[in-house]
């Protein structure tokens, strides 16, 4: 199993660690390129030209102010859910529950915004953000605690909790939805996040809002937590090698529960983009699968806050690009591309890492 080369060979080859890093770092780009190539076959099958379709997607989602604003709006919740999944992965846990967590976070933010509608914004806005983080955090901490206490697999439990969350929202809907709708009343004006077009006129008409800077703060905070704090070190140690971490004095169960709570809180905050920044109410099915796409975002972003942010922008552009091409190619092409990126990325990453290990 030893990968060490004999001294003579090592001296001849000279260690060049950047080659391995470069090889591994090329994974996300290669995966996207391959996914687009396979996606092109679907475009051809429908009788369209892939080059034209991809160019159209790119132009409309990033080339105009309005399109960029739409892309940023769609990228915002994906930054949150991508960070959520990445936080879990860093601790060696797979949080598939971001969809349930973002749903409950959004509902909690909306109900707080409705109940305390008269409060002034410096109180109401933080209250709504806190409610979103708490609701998502509790929903995430539960499978974390079950893992820590009973060794129950978090993957199954987070899947189950997604469905329980959906049923819970349906049930609560009887009491909190407007008659004959699946949406709540509107939140108080103090809870509304302003649109970015007020700062940057080029985005005129697009729904991108102040949840985006919040997401970037979330990414920065995640970076600091993971790489600059003791708790973050513990979290990564548990993810890399739990028995060794325990031997080093780290409480595995508590760290896992904390990681899942933070992960859930991050996903829960993703709900404010829609509720506080766009519609100003909660609506069933608002998320558009942001919780699940967060898995793709974390995967492509290699569980690093910077990578996650870039990957979220890519998937945001893809999501809006799908709407643009819908007249020529079914917009479901985007869902196919998302899935292909996931499937190809896990294969490519593994292959590249194996190759990098074999480098001299």
């Amino acid at each position, binding site marked *: 199993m030893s990968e060490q080369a004999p001294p003579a060979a090592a001296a001849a080859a000279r260690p060049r660690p950047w080659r391995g890093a470069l090889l591994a770092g090329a994974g996300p780009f290669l995966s996207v390129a391959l996914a687009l190539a396979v996606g092109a076959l679907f475009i051809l099958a429908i009788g369209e030209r892939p080059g034209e379709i991809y160019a159209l997607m790119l132009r409309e989602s990033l080339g105009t102010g309005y399109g960029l604003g739409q892309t940023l709006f769609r990228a915002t919740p994906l930054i949150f859910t991508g960070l959520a999944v990445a936080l879990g992965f860093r601790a060696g846990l797979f949080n598939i529950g971001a969809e349930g967590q973002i749903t409950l976070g959004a509902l909690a933010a909306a109900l707080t915004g409705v109940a305390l509608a008269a409060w002034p914004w410096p109180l109401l806005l933080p209250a709504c953000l806190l409610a979103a983080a708490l609701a998502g955090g509790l929903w995430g901490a539960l499978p974390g605690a*079950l893992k820590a206490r009973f060794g129950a697999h978090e993957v*199954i439990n987070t899947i189950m909790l997604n469905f329980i969350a959906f049923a*819970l929202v349906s049930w609560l809907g009887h009491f909190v939805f407007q008659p004959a709708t699946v949406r709540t009343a509107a939140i108080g004006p103090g809870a509304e996040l302003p649109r970015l077009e007020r700062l940057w006129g080029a985005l005129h008409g697009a729904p991108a809002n102040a949840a985006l800077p919040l997401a970037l703060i979330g990414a920065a905070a995640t970076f600091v937590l993971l790489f600059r704090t003791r708790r973050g070190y513990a979290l990564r140690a548990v993810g890399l090698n739990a028995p060794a971490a325990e031997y080093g004095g780290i409480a595995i169960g508590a760290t896992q529960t904390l990681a899942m709570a933070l992960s859930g809180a991050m996903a829960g905050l993703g709900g404010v983009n829609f509720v506080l920044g766009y519609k100003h109410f909660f609506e069933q099915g608002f998320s558009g699968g942001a919780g*699940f796409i967060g898995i793709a975002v974390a995967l492509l972003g290699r569980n690093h806050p910077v990578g996650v942010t870039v990957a979220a922008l890519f998937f945001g552009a893809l999501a809006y690009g799908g709407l643009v091409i819908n007249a020529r190619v079914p917009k479901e092409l985007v869902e196919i591309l998302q*899935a*292909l990126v996931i499937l190809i990325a896990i294969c490519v990453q593994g292959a590249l890492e194996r190759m990098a290990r074999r480098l001299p």
Partner: protein
Amino acid sequence: METLLFLAAAVRISVPYALAALGASINERGGVINIALEGMMLHGALAYTLGAFWTGSAWIGVGAAVLAGVLTGALHALVTVRLRADQITSGLGINLLAVGLTKFVLKAVFDSSSNSSRVAGLPEWHLPLLSRLPALGPVLSTPLVLITAALVVGGQWLVFRSVFGLRLRVMGERPEAAAALGLSVERVRSAGVLISGALAGLAGAWLASEQHSFTDGMTGGRGYIALAAMIVGKWSPLGAAAACLLFGGAEALQISLQGSAFPSELLQMMPYLVTMLALAGFIGRAVAPRAIGIPSDPEKDA
């Protein structure tokens, strides 16, 4: 009579769960996690609809559904067994792919984003005695109900009494021991995943046949309920089928309680809550095969 009618309804609802959960028990016994059940079912449902639509024959639809399930299984096996990538992520990717792909094809073939044209359903089988039973007659005249029951019994035999089952279970517990005996981990594990795909595809055929059409996202999370049933049934085909009947019963109750004051959403949560309790060890311990989720090929690892 009332009870029998309720039982008949529960059986009907359980059929797709039982088929997919049976497949899941088989592949997970081999050490491969299969979250892709949902996507396999969705592909199966669309393939049934296309097969029945183009040929007019429901049985050709069933064949197409099984084939679509096997192909989806082959993708999962390629990614996880051959290329040894993460099994959970692969399953999620396949489910996402199925959602997009089925809608894409729906638009291309039927020019609709929500539903297909009406297609034939499976005809009834009128067997002596069985079909005449009070209340249960209709359900026992339904071909896929009978086939499912036979497959569950056959599956139990396959996993616990056959040579293939023994090999499969070794792959799930100690693949390195199996490899030392000269068995191909890749081949046995892949076979488990392909069987699972075939069964989940058949489950999809049932859904489309019952409804006489394909509608977008028609599996509605049933693949995940089947996965839950497999856990509650402790990775055994008979146990999983019993859990499916329990879940199907809860759903039948939900339908019969519609309009009453009892909140049906609470019953809807039941399967998920039971599964979480089982995982936490409150309903007997649900323990997964030892080597599950670990991509393994000792020949290549060595």
